[in-house]
C-alpha cells in the first residue's frame, strides 16, 4: 500500500531522505508543468520547481500535517511563480520606460488579440492559442484553472491555496472558464466563431 504524502513528509522529518525522494517522484512532473503553464519557460519552471522542493525540504523540521500536503506544495509553487511573473513584468516595464520613443510607438501598433488569434489559426498553432488564452486570464483565475483542470484539486483545496472562500472560488472558476470559452471560441465552436467544434482531448485533466 502506497504511503500517504503526510506519512512520507513525517518520515522525511524523522531523517529519512528516501521518503523525500518518493515525494519528489510523485510531484516533480505536476509541479514543473504547473509552473511552466504560468511562466511559459521550461528553464524558469525548473528553477522554480527546484526552489519549491528545497523550501519543502527545509521546512521538514517544523512540518505539521495540519493541511493537505498538495495544498501546501502548490501554494508555495503558485506564490513563487506569480512573484517571478511580477518581477519579470517589472523589469520589462523598466526596459520599456528606458527604450527610445520609436520602439514605444511600434509597441502601440501591435495587433489586437483577435488579429493574433486569426494569425495563429492560419498557422494552425492550437497549443499557442490555448496558452495565449490561459495567459490572458488574471493571475488568480489562471492559478484556479490550472489547479482545477490540470491538478484536479477539489474546491476546498484550491480555495486554501488561493486564500479565498469556496463560493468565491466557484465564481472565480466560472468567470475564468467563461473567458476561456470566448477566447477559444474558434476551437470550441462557440457563437463568436463559425469554426466547427473540435474536441481532441488526450484524456488528461478534469472534465469541466
Amino acid at each position, binding site marked *: 500500500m502506497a504511503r500517504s504524502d503526510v506519512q512520507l513528509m513525517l518520515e522525511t522529518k524523522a531523517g529519512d*531522505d528516501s521518503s*523525500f525522494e518518493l515525494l*519528489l517522484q510523485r510531484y*516533480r*512532473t505536476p509541479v*514543473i*508543468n504547473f509552473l*511552466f*503553464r504560468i511562466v511559459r519557460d*521550461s528553464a524558469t*519552471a*525548473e528553477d522554480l*520547481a*527546484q526552489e519549491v*522542493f*528545497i523550501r519543502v*525540504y*527545509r521546512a521538514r*523540521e517544523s512540518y505539521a500535517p495540519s493541511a493537505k500536503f498538495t495544498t501546501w506544495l502548490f501554494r508555495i509553487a503558485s506564490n513563487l511563480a506569480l512573484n517571478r511573473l511580477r518581477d519579470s513584468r517589472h523589469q520589462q516595464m523598466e526596459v520599456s520606460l528606458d527604450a527610445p520613443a520609436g520602439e514605444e510607438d511600434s509597441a502601440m501598433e501591435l495587433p489586437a488579440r483577435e488579429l493574433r488569434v486569426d494569425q495563429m489559426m492560419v498557422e494552425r498553432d*492550437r*497549443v499557442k492559442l*490555448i*496558452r495565449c488564452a*490561459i495567459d490572458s486570464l488574471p493571475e488568480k483565475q489562471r492559478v484556479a484553472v490550472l489547479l482545477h*483542470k*490540470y491538478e484536479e484539486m477539489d*474546491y476546498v483545496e484550491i480555495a486554501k491555496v488561493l486564500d479565498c472562500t469556496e463560493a468565491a472560488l*466557484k*465564481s472565480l*472558476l*466560472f468567470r475564468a*472558464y467563461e473567458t*476561456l*470559452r470566448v477566447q*477559444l471560441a474558434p*476551437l*470550441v*465552436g*462557440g*457563437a463568436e466563431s463559425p469554426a466547427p*467544434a*473540435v*474536441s*481532441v*482531448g*488526450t*484524456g*488528461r*485533466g*478534469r*472534465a*469541466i
Partner: protein
Amino acid sequence: MKYEVNCERISSTLIPYLDGRASADDQRAVEAHASICPACRQRIEEYRCLSGVLDELPIIEQSAAFNARLRERIAAEPRPGWFAWLMPSPRLAFALAMLLALSVWMGKVQPPADTAVATSQSEQDFHVIKDLGVLENYDVLKGFDALSELPVAAQEQQSQTPQDQQQKDGQI
C-alpha cells in the same frame, strides 16, 4: 426574463455540474433549464468541448539534470546537529529565555518599605546576638566604666550586700 433568472442560476452551478459535484437539486435544475433553454444547452456543450481543448496542452518532462541538481542541493542542506535534540522547539527556547529574564528582573527589583524596616530590625537583633558573649561576661561588665557613672541611688539599688558580693566572688 424568465430565462434570464434561470440562466443566472445556471452560471453559479455550471462548473460543479460539469465536474459532477453539484447537489442533486442543482443537477436537476440545470438539466431542466437546459432542456428548455437552447442558449444554455449550447453553452454546456461548449464547456464540455473546452475541456477537451484544454487537454491539448502538452506535458513537459524535466530535464536530465533536474534530479541530479536537486539531489546535490538537498545534500548540501545543513542537517540538524545533536543540540537540536536539546532545543526541540523554538517556542520552548523562547519560553525558557523569558523565564530566565523574569528571574533576573525579579532579583533586581527593590524590596518594599516594610520589608526594609523588617530588615533593619533583624540587623539590630543580629548585633545583640553577636554581642551576647560580651554581655554575659561578668568580668567585662564589672570593669565597665559606664556603670560607675550611674547615680548613687541607682548604684545602691543595683548593688547588693557585701555578703552576697563575697558569695558571688567565691563562686567566681
